[in-house]
């Protein structure tokens, strides 16, 4: 099977599309699709010199901004319809991208011990092992 990612949105000049803000929520939400982030979530974010707070479904969240590692960019890809056959070719469309992630913990200040932050170590190690 091959995986194809098409981009009909241009080379990324469009800031509104390619420089969106992603939120990493400490909660498994069993739903895929668009979400009213701007209406229901972002109005409630407070920023005390970089220490962020917000609320999701009544739960208190503590957050921090995480920049993407240098040289990387984040792309959102969507698939209109997943083929039924396991080994069929898959086609994805680029739907946008983001430059910034806000990482949220449930009632716990983000730290370097958080899983996502720890996983990011791999980026540097990988460059050292596999890079030129």
């Amino acid at each position: 099977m091959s995986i194809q990612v098409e981009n009909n949105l241009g080379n990324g000049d469009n800031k509104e599309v390619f420089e969106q803000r992603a939120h990493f929520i400490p909660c498994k939400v069993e739903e895929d699709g668009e979400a009213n982030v701007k209406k229901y979530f972002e109005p409630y974010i407070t920023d005390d010199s970089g220490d962020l707070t917000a609320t999701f479904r009544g739960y208190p969240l503590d957050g921090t901004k995480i920049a993407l590692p240098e040289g990387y960019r984040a792309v959102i890809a969507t698939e209109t319809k997943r083929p039924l056959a396991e080994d069929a070719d898959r086609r994805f469309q680029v739907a946008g991208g983001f430059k910034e992630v806000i990482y949220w913990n449930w009632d716990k200040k983000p730290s370097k011990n958080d899983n996502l932050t720890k996983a990011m170590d791999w980026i540097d190690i990988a460059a050292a092992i596999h890079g030129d």
Partner: protein
Amino acid sequence: MNSLEQLQDYIKTKNNSRNFINISDVPEVCKTEPCMLGVDEAGRGPVLGPMVYGIAYCPVNKNSILESLGCADSKALTEEKRDEILLKMFTNDDAVNNVGWAAEIISPSYISNSMYKRAKHSLNEVSMDSAIKLIKRVAESGVNLTEVYVDTVGPPEKYQARLSQIFPDYKITVAKKADSIYPIVSAASIVAKVTRDHCLKVWHFQEGLEMSYKEFGSGYPGDPLTKKFIRDQIDKVFGYPSLVRFSWSTAEVMLQGKAATCTFEDVDDDGQTKKANTKSISSFFTMPNENGTKKRKRHKFFEERYLSMKNAFE
């Protein structure tokens, strides 16, 4: 404050997802004469809107002023009558010169967030904290407090012990239905109730919903309008606008049925994250791996960082 419109305007300037305090000037006489202070809350039960803590204080010998204002069991008063009494507290000379008041507006977001903390902070604790904060604030502004009367829904003994410990110099009385016994508590109750009513009247949905209090009702779970609101105003992902107390079972149950399922990490009673490290009993009876080879374990580096090989397009 000179009118209820001014009260509404003041509420409108505040962010309704945060707590704030509205407080009167201190009448001069209260700085010298020994004073009594009453505490009561409004909106403890509703699933919608803030809870408001109110206090009122005046010289011990000025009960007559409270009675002439009409301060009596606030539950027996109509909404119009309560509005009228608060307006008198704002404008009537006798009242302004003798009776001071304050209200803390505790936002529904704050309530849900407190109850959904890792170490749960109950509504009783939120209530006590608010009462203590308001009493301290009044004492610090120079009021000569000697007696404190508190209306409570919960067990009075615990509350009384806590307050006596914090304020050993005051004569403290915590009682159920204090609202209908002590006029100063009735006054506090009116401050709290009217403030809450007006908070709902001017509620601005930051979610962009155009809806007035006439459509979402009193906020009590039994109110048909509130029931309809809780049933209809659901966002699949985010649940409800911040007017709703997510931690109320009415809201929880509705979301379980109608919104996307959300699972936060599991926490047991000590506030510790659960770890499943006990093997299930059946695991001792299964056959070992067929050809006997163990799956190669990945390096600790990956394990510690929760990294594994996955197909990103799965």
